[in-house]
């Protein structure tokens, strides 16, 4: 499977997919930290993908999403935005509304984080 196919699989299957620099345990970028922080506070179930493991992941991801920067947050298969948008959605209360709308009222029951490691094989 190519990176593109694997990226698409994560986007389609994870309730919340976070493409970030580093992992939730070892965050390598302030903006990735901001996005993860907002998702944590909202009680989301986050599947994190570290884009730093291969430059190709970042390129293929941006080709799929049309979004040039990292982090990228997808909820229910749809791009929500980067750190600025996710933080703004949190401030306005819309982040929780989006999570409920896409994932159902009990989305927080599966809160937590897992890391998906992408390799091209």
């Amino acid at each position, binding site marked *: 499977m190519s990176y593109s196919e694997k990226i698409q699989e994560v986007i389609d299957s994870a309730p919340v997919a976070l493409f970030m620099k580093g992992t939730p345990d070892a965050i390598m970028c302030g903006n990735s930290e901001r996005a993860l922080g907002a998702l944590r506070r909202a009680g989301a179930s986050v599947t994190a993908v570290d884009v730093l493991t291969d430059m190709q992941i970042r390129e293929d991801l941006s080709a799929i999403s049309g979004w*040039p920067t990292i982090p990228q947050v997808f909820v229910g298969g749809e791009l*929500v*935005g980067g750190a*600025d*948008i996710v933080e703004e959605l949190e401030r306005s209360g819309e982040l929780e509304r989006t999570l409920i709308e896409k994932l159902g009222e009990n989305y927080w029951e599966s809160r937590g984080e897992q890391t998906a490691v992408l390799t091209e094989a």
Partner: protein
Amino acid sequence: MRVYQFRHIRVLVSLAPSAGWAATMRVVAKERLQAILEKAFPDAPEVLVIDRGGGDHFEARVTDSSFNGLSMIDQHKLIYKALAEPWADGTIHELRIRTKGVTDTGGAS
């Protein structure tokens, strides 16, 4: 001299022996981004580029009627599109974006 991203160091060292020159380059970059956005959003009541340090970190604040009715994602995509060239050439390494639509009464929505 400020701490620059590693990939820029060689260019800056060869071009810029003084901290004063580096500061000038940052002002030039900010003004270039400001001009690009003003051209892309000619009727915008607010276009503001803020230098957020590091030489290539900026914030863009734009209020424009073309954002009305668009999701935040699509609003930010318009900013990325307008700034595609300075992204590609490394002028921008990091960008914060704040966008707003304009209401009928002229206020920000």
